[in-house]
C-alpha cells in the first residue's frame, strides 16, 4: 500500500515543553504515522533539540491536513532539493555515481515535486523524462547515450514497506527460513491468497496475477499434476522456467518418464535417458510447444495446461540446455527483458525448486509483491529472504509436496 509522506523538522526546546510529544500525538490522532529520525537532544538546558520526523498518511489529503495541524507547533516541511541528473556518456553505460535502485518503492524529486519511479526493481538505474516529468527504472544495458540518469542520493527517497493489512503469514514481517516450521498454516495462508487473487483476476482487476518460477524438480519429484491442475484452475497465470521443466513435463506425456525414470513405475527404464532428447527433437520438428499441444501430440501436464489457459510463459535458457525447445530464449539479456515485461500485474510470486529462476525472479520483483520461496535446500529461501522483503516467506520442503499440499488445500483430488 502506498503512503504519502513528507519530512518535517522540529527544533527548539521541544522535549521538556512536550511540543514533540504533542506533534507526534497529533499525527497519530489524525490517522497518520511517523518515523522519528535524527533526534538530537540538547546537551545543556540552553541547547535546543532537533527532530526530523517523517510523517505518513494513507492519502495526500490527510497528509496535508496533518501538516497543517502540526505547523503551528513549529513543524516545518524540510526543504528538499531536486535529484541530480547526469547524461549517460554512451549507449549501455550509466554516468559515474549513478543511483542504484533497491526493490522498495522509490520517489525522485524533479522540478520541486516528488515523482514515483515506475517499474521498481533492484539494481537498476533511474531515467528521468523532464518533459513528461516521469521517472522509470532502466537496466544498464538499455541506456542510450544522453539519457538523463539520476546520480547521487539527493532528491531520492525510498519508501519503507508498510506492514500488510492482511493478517496472514505475509504480515508477520519476518523472513525466517526454517525447516522446522510447520508448513500447514503457511500453505493454508498461501491458498487463501490464491483464492482472493483468482477472484480478482476473473474480475479483470490489475495486480491479481500469480507467477510461478520453477525448475524441473517439480516434474521429477511428482508435482507435475498438481501444478497442471493449479494452472487449469486459473490459480497461476504466469510461468517462468528454463528448458528442462517443459522438456521433462512433455517427456512424461510422450514417454511416461522424466529424465528416464518411469513416472508411474518409479524406476529407470531402458534407454530412458534419451527420452527428453527425443521429446525436444519432436517439439522442434513440430515447431512450437503450442502447436504440439493444439495438434494433440502433447495432451497432459504443465505446458498443456499453460497453452489451454493461455498462461504467459517465459522460458530462459542456460549453457547446459539440450536443444533447446522452441521458444526458449537463449540470449540472457533478452530473457531478462522478457521476464521483466511479465512482472507488472503480478500479485504473488511462487519461486519453486530453482535456484537460478528464483534468484533471477527475486531480483525483478518489487518488495511490495509477496513471494514464497520453496526449496529443499535452505540456502535458496535464505538468499531470497536476505533481500529484506517483509513479505518473502521461505519454506524448506520439496517442490512436489508443496504443490500437492497447496493444490489439495484448493480442492485438488489426486
Amino acid at each position, binding site marked *: 500500500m502506498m503512503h504519502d509522506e513528507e519530512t518535517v523538522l522540529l*527544533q*527548539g*526546546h521541544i522535549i*521538556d*515543553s*512536550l*511540543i514533540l*510529544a*504533542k506533534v507526534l500525538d497529533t499525527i497519530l490522532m489524525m490517522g497518520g504515522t511517523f518515523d522519528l529520525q535524527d533526534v538530537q537532544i540538547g546537551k545543556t*538546558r*540552553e541547547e*535546543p533539540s532537533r527532530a526530523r520526523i517523517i510523517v505518513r498518511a494513507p492519502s495526500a489529503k490527510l497528509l496535508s491536513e496533518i501538516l497543517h495541524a502540526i505547523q*503551528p*507547533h*513549529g513543524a*516545518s516541511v524540510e526543504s528538499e532539493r531536486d535529484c541530480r541528473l547526469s547524461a549517460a556518456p554512451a549507449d549501455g553505460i550509466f554516468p559515474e555515481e549513478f543511483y542504484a535502485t533497491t526493490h522498495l518503492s522509490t520517489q525522485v524529486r524533479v522540478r520541486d515535486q516528488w515523482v514515483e519511479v515506475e517499474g521498481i526493481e533492484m539494481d537498476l538505474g533511474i531515467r528521468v523524462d523532464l518533459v513528461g516529468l516521469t521517472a522509470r527504472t532502466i537496466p544498464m544495458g538499455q541506456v542510450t547515450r544522453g539519457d538523463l540518469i539520476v546520480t547521487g542520493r539527493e532528491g531520492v527517497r525510498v519508501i519503507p514497506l508498510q506492514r500488510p493489512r492482511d493478517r496472514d503469514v505475509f504480515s508477520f514481517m519476518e523472513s525466517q527460513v526454517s525447516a522446522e516450521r510447520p508448513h500447514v498454516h503457511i500453505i493454508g495462508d498461501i491458498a487463501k491468497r490464491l483464492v482472493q487473487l483468482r477472484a480478482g483476476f476473473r474480475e479483470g482487476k490489475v495486480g491479481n496475477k500469480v507467477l510461478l518460477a520453477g525448475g524441473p524438480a517439480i516434474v521429477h519429484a511428482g508435482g507435475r499434476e498438481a501444478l497442471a491442475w493449479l494452472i487449469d484452475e486459473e490459480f497461476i497465470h504466469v510461468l517462468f522456467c528454463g528448458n528442462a521443466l517443459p522438456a521433462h513435463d512433455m517427456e512424461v506425456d510422450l514417454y511416461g518418464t522424466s529424465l528416464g525414470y518411469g513416472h508411474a513405475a518409479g524406476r529407470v527404464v531402458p534407454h530412458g535417458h534419451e527420452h527428453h532428447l527425443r521429446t525436444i527433437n519432436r517439439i522442434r520438428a513440430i515447431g512450437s510447444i503450442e502447436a504440439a499441444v493444439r495438434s494433440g501430440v502433447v495432451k497432459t501436464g504443465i505446458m498443456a495446461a499453460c497453452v489451454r489457459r493461455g498462461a504467459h510463459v517465459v522460458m530462459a535458457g542456460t549453457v547446459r540446455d539440450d536443444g533447446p525447445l522452441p521458444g526458449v530464449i537463449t540470449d540472457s539479456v533478452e530473457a531478462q527483458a522478457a521476464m521483466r515485461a511479465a512482472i507488472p500485474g503480478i500479485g504473488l510470486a511462487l519461486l519453486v525448486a530453482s535456484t537460478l529462476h528464483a534468484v533471477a525472479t527475486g531480483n525483478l520483483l518489487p518488495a511490495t509483491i509477496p513471494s514464497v520461496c520453496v526449496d529443499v535446500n535452505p540456502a535458496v529461501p535464505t538468499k531470497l529472504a536476505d533481500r529484506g522483503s517483509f513479505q518473502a516467506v521461505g519454506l524448506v520442503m520439496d517442490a512436489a509436496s508443496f504443490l500437492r499440499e497447496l493444490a489439495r488445500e484448493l480442492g485438488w483430488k489426486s
Partner: protein
Amino acid sequence: MEVMSRLLVCPPDYFGIEYEINPWMRRSNAVNSDQAVRQWHHLMQVLEQHVGAVLERINPVPGLPDLVFTANAGIVVGGTAVPSRFRYAERQKEEAYFEDWFREQGYEVVTLDPGHFFEGAGDLLGFPDTWFGGYRQRSDIRVYPTLSEWFHREIIPLELVDKRFYHLDTCLCPLSGGELLYFPPAFDHYGQEALAERIAPSRRLVVPEAEALRFACNAVCVGKHVVLPAGCLETESLLISRGYLLHPVPLDEFMKSGGSAKCLTLALD
C-alpha cells in the same frame, strides 16, 4: 534591599478602542478617557513611589491607541532589544516607533525574520534562566529557537488555547521568589504538564478563574513588590502568604482593551 527596575511606559493620551483584535475589545464599549488617564497616572505613581521603579516614557502617537501597552514593544535583554513583529496590521504600525525608541536609547537592535510574528514581553517572560514563550494566538513558535540561541536561554514554548488569554502575560506571571502565578486552563495539558515538571507544586500559585478573568496574572513583580489589578482578593492572599508586598490598582478602563498592569509596562533591565 530594594531592586532597581527601569520600565518603559507610554501615556494613554490616544488610548481607546478603535478596532477589535481580541475578545475583550468591543468598539461599543467606549473607554472613559479621563478615567483611563487617572488610572494610568495612579499606576505610575505606585510604580515610582511604592515600588521604586524608574520610568522611561515613549511619546504617544495619534492613531496608535495600543501604543500604551508597552509590554508588546519587544524584549530587552542587557543592551540588546528585539522589537516585536505584530500579528495584526492594526498594531504593526507601532513597530517603527518602538524600534526608533530602542535605537535612540542606544540599544543594539536585533530584528527577527519578518515572516514570523512575535509580540515581545507579552508572550516571552520567565525566570532568570528559563523563559516561557506563549504561541499560537499572537506569537509564532518559530521565533523561540532563534531567541534562545541569541540569548542563551532555555525557552519553553506554551500553547495558548483560550482566546481570552491571548498573550502569555495574561495568564502567567513568574515571581521574583521563583513562584509561578498562573491560570492552568489557559494551557493545554501538554503545557500544564511541562510547567508542572519544571516548577514544584509548592511554587505553583493557581489563580481562580474569576480573578484570572480580571487579569490577576497581568501583574508587575519587582523584588518583593507585586502590582496587580484591584479586586483579586484570593490572588492577593496567595501572594501575601508568600511574603509579597501587594499594590492593587484599579485598571478597568484598560481591561476594556484586554490589558492591565503588566501590559502597560516593559522591563528594560
